[in-house]
């Protein structure tokens, strides 16, 4: 198969995935943009915050929950101190003294174990999981509870935005997070959500208990529980208006480590729940969503990078031959076309057409995501840069993940 045909096939797959999201969004716009419901029956909610060495963040998280516009008698805050060796416990004690939170101490056993511990003590009908580096808006809990319908719903996730975005890397992550809000909301309408992010998700406590709680040996226990809910036929909804703000990695190294963990968790869990893929029992989730997740992971990303690598190699090798033949004199990189006609015809249509379609649709998705999340359209350049630089970087991390898994490098928390 020639490189050109491969480019067109990959672009067609990418276009298909993007168009499904765009068309689903446009067709379901009415439901997606108007999710607000009046909170008629404020259910008892227990929010668990596992904390390990979170002295910098824990106060913000707890305070934001305490400031929520949700009936105080219906909101239980449980913080699990997972063997912190910093000042986390000391900070939390002042809230305990005022009886504002319930504090559970345990030796360091990981996030899954901390959540199970909280689950045992939780009184709420709904069990919330919130990261210690996350804060909520005043109406976040109320919006999530109001949208927790039907009652046999498995879980609902909040709309996550990065907290205090300053650097370019954080701004790129913001583009990604906004796009995730759109994607998850669209997937909600397609009934294909299979994640419950740890930043803040609410679960039906009864269902969670019946399923055995969280997997304590999983590096992405939030993904595992979501797939378990789905495998037992429970739906997962997504909110696009109940915002939470999470601290995102500030350096490339930290981002790399975070994503390696997420990606390895994805691979670990998708392997565990592989029976759902292409299984008609799981309808659109099994037949479409999980399948394209695998196609993207194992075909689109590696093939995309293989092509970029091949083209880069050919270009560099051509320069090597040039310098070898002529010496170190600047080559004529661009040969100017002699007429407007020649200029138009020198356009490499078979390469730029699929590329343009892919970039245009990605850009369109980002614009729709900004509209949905009430963000400004100002950062057009940033969005384009995110497509050109940030997403390829994430792709590289995916390749590294695959490599780590192939080489069986030990998984770390």
């Amino acid at each position, binding site marked *: 198969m020639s490189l050109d045909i491969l480019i*067109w096939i990959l672009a067609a797959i990418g*276009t298909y995935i993007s168009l499904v999201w765009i068309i*689903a969004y446009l*067709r379901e716009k009415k439901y997606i943009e108007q999710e607000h419901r009046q909170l008629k029956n404020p259910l008892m909610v227990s929010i668990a915050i596992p904390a390990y060495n979170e002295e910098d963040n824990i106060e913000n998280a707890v305070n934001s929950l305490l400031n929520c516009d949700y009936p105080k008698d219906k909101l239980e805050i449980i913080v699990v101190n997972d063997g912190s060796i910093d000042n986390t416990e000391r900070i939390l004690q002042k809230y305990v003294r005022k009886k504002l939170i319930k504090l559970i101490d345990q030796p360091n056993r990981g996030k899954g174990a901390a959540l199970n511990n909280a689950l045992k003590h939780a009184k709420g009908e709904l069990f919330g999981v919130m990261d210690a580096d996350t804060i909520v808006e005043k109406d976040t809990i109320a919006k999530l509870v109001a949208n927790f319908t039907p009652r046999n719903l498995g879980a609902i996730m909040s709309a996550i935005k990065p907290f205090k975005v300053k650097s370019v890397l954080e701004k790129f992550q913001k583009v990604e997070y906004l796009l995730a809000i759109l994607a998850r909301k669209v997937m909600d309408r397609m009934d294909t959500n299979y994640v419950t992010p740890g930043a803040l998700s609410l679960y039906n406590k009864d269902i969670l208990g019946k399923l055995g709680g969280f997997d304590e040996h999983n590096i992405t226990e939030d993904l595992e529980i979501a797939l378990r809910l789905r495998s037992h036929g429970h739906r997962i909804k997504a909110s696009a208006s109940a915002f939470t703000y999470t601290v995102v990695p500030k350096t490339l190294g930290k981002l790399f480590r975070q994503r390696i963990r997420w990606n390895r968790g994805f691979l670990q869990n998708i392997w565990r729940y592989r029976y759902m893929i292409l299984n008609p029992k799981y309808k659109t989730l099994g037949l479409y969503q999980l399948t394209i997740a695998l196609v993207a992971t194992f075909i689109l990303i590696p093939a995309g990078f293989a092509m970029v690598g091949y083209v880069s190699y050919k270009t560099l090798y051509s320069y090597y031959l040039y310098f070898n033949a*002529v010496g170190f004199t600047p080559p004529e990189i661009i040969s100017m076309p*002699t007429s407007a006609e020649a200029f138009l015809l020198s356009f490499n*249509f*078979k390469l730029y057409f699929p590329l343009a379609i892919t970039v245009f649709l990605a850009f369109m998705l980002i614009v729709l995501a900004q509209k949905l999340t009430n963000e400004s359209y100002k950062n057009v350049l940033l969005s384009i840069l995110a497509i050109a630089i940030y997403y390829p970087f994430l792709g590289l991390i995916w390749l590294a993940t695959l490599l780590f898994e192939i080489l069986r490098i030990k998984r770390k928390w």
Partner: protein
Amino acid sequence: MFKKINFLYVGILVMVIFGIGISVGLNYDTMRKQVIEKETKLFNAQIEDFIVTNEIIRELASKECKLIEPYLVDIARQSEELGNSLQNFENKGIVRGEDYEMLKNSYFLNEIHYWMTIENYKQCNPEITTILFFYGKNDDSIKQGFALTELRKENIGKVFVFNFDIDKIDTNAVRVLTSIYGIKQSPSLVINSKNLSTDFVSLDSLRNITKLE
């Protein structure tokens, strides 16, 4: 809820979008071929014009034969543009059909015609160097092409290079030419109709050869 039938509609839409893309790409191919055909005709006409002009001067003003030398440079530029267009468009085409092979053969024939014309003109200016460059799909051919382009740029109006793809010989004229000079591999160079090199010749060596000539 998003209905399953929509997945089919999106599939059809993707096919329509990429179908339009292929259709526009094929139109591009057609336009490119038309441009090359036009350039080939122009190149042909310039050579014919040069031959007639050369004969007129030889008959009527033989001492002024160098008057037509600027035309040679024009034709060389035209030849280079045509060669570039052919290479450029061939790699960018959606379909690589027989049409391109025919255009390429036509280009090689024009190159031979042009080479013979210059060889003939050398009676007037013996300082001119002609190089027949037989290339193939290998790294040495690519390097040789770079070196020759550089040499030509350094000696505009003095060094003339004529390119032939040894892997795509489909005309009797080129076949005869390769047979006469015993060309069996690429890259091969025929310099001023006699010196034969069947290996990569560095830019420095080429500079020396053209000076010696």
